[in-house]
């Protein structure tokens, strides 16, 4: 067990090193943009995975925590001058508090009831944000550029700093998942996921376990939202709070393999470039082919590899030990 955990950490370190070298030969701005978005979603989906995968609570409202992080860090910067390198922690904290506030009543619901409740809460905040003047309403908020800086997390001359920022984010969320896998809470999560009633009978405190997962997941998602806001320089309810974003955050983990360390990485590496490329080559004129491809891929993977694409790499007979059986 311990040796396996150490091997995984080592593998994570190797992956980090390789990914750090990856952007160096790339000069093309479009490809770098793709890399940044993919790395960002590796982190976001791993954050979702903590609650949805390890703990088994399928949230379809993570856009709320993403948007909270984006708006909080942006507004603190614009109104109080707090640099986003600190503001992202504030954004993460607000997102974590929101995740706890959503989780406390909703965790009493199981299965589909919970999933629908998370959608509804996120949509309420989306609709309120559309009508909230202090958030810029439907027209959104621009973040003014004041020169390249690691303090303000703004870079215009090169995309490389954002690659490393996104990589650091993805790596830290991965590390968080790795740490939690070995803690008591991590074991509780898997018990809660597999059979909440049996877990309770074994003195697992179900609600607190779920709340810990929600808080960590919300925090990490919020930080991702703040980084995204700095990268794009403009946020509005449609880009940081809308329902399709909730699905996009969950999908890499689902396609790659839920409740695993490598699932979100594998899923994002496949899904994000595919969806970006098909959108720019096929979706520009609104033909809908990009959506057909995207939806078709989801159906295909869900039916063909229900345990996620990671199952392809698992040793024979060992598959599914970590994909879980729900």
């Amino acid at each position, binding site marked *: 067990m311990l040796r396996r955990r150490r091997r995984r950490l080592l593998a994570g370190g190797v992956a980090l090193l390789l990914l750090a070298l990856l952007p160096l030969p790339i000069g093309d701005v479009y490809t770098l943009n793709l890399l940044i978005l993919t790395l960002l979603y590796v982190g976001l989906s791993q954050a979702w995975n903590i609650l949805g995968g390890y703990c088994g609570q399928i949230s*379809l409202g993570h856009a709320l925590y993403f948007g909270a992080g984006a708006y909080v860090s942006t507004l603190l910067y614009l109104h109080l001058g707090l640099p986003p390198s600190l503001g992202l922690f504030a954004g993460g904290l607000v997102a974590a508090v929101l995740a706890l506030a959503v989780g406390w009543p909703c965790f009493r619901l199981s299965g*589909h009831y919970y*999933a629908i409740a998370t959608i*509804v809460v996120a949509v309420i905040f989306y609709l309120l944000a559309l009508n909230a003047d202090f958030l810029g309403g439907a027209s959104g908020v621009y973040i003014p550029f004041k020169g390249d800086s690691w303090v303000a997390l703004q870079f215009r001359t090169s995309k490389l700093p954002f690659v490393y920022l996104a990589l650091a984010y993805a790596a830290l969320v991965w590390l968080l998942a790795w740490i939690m896998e070995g803690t008591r809470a991590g074991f509780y999560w898997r018990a809660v996921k597999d059979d909440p009633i049996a877990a309770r009978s074994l003195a697992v405190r179900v609600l607190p376990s779920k709340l810990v997962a929600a808080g960590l997941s919300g925090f990490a998602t919020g930080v991702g939202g703040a980084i995204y806001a700095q990268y794009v320089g403009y946020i509005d309810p449609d880009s940081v709070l809308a329902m399709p974003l909730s*699905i996009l955050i969950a999908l890499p983990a689902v396609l790659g393999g839920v409740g695993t360390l490598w699932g979100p990485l594998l899923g994002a590496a496949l899904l994000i470039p595919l969806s970006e490329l098909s959108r720019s080559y096929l979706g520009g004129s609104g033909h*809908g082919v990009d959506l*057909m491809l995207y939806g078709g*891929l989801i159906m295909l993977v869900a039916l063909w590899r229900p345990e996620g694409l990671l199952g392809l790499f698992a040793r024979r007979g060992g598959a599914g030990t970590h994909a879980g059986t729900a």
Partner: protein
Amino acid sequence: MSLAAVVQMLLSGLLMGLIYALVAAGLSLIFGLMDVVNFAHGELLMLAMYATFFLWRGTGIEPLLLVPVVAILLFGVGMVIYRTLIARALGVRANRGMVQIFITFGLAIFLQGAAQFAFGGDFRSIGHSLLANRTVAFAGVYLPLPQAAAGVVCLLAFAALLLIARTEFGRALEATREDREAVALLGIDRDRIFALGWGLGAASVGVAGAMLAGFYYTSPDVGANFALIAYVTVALGGFGSLAGALLAGVLIGEVEAVTAQLFDPSLKQVGVLGVYLLVLLVRPRGLFGTL
């Protein structure tokens, strides 16, 4: 606010609520039968609306007469979706709950893209028909005829669903809902019942969509809002309960109309969703749910 304005508000809430109720009934039927939430439910509504629009434009037949045609069409679509996707999703070995959620999400995205591809992004509406743009005025209250007809047809569809529940097939549905394993021993083909359940659920949306097309713009993404309200209606009424769907649908129509009137039309959904959350806190299984 004058009395006429209050009656007007409640009336429009009731008529919209009946549509919501019928859309939700289809969702509730499928969920009650096999524990699957159809996240592509709004897209079935969209398909029904397009079918009505193009049948009307192609043949010039009165949209009201097209309702049974669209219902039968959607019945077929529902059966096909069950046979090609859902039956397989029910049979997977790992992550069954998650596969069910994401398979219907994938279908929803696919159907939206397909509609965009086939019909373009334009808003379509049925311009002239027996009822289009006509209203009846009574004591200062205006009753738009397409909405009124939609309300009546939705009530008839509910009556039909309740009648079906009393037939041999309806009893087989109920038995399958109660205990999937036991019915197999009684010689009931579960797979066939599930397929017919999907057909019936989709046909309900078909009727709602055919009526909705008479007074609402049709576009590839028209389903999203109606689907969200349908999930809320079903959760509010209690999953699997027909009477619950009807009452919750009307309640939601009224809450929406009152919120739009008292606050701001752009906030009408916030009122609906807020009421849902409130009920959830007090009674997690919904008004009529038997958890």
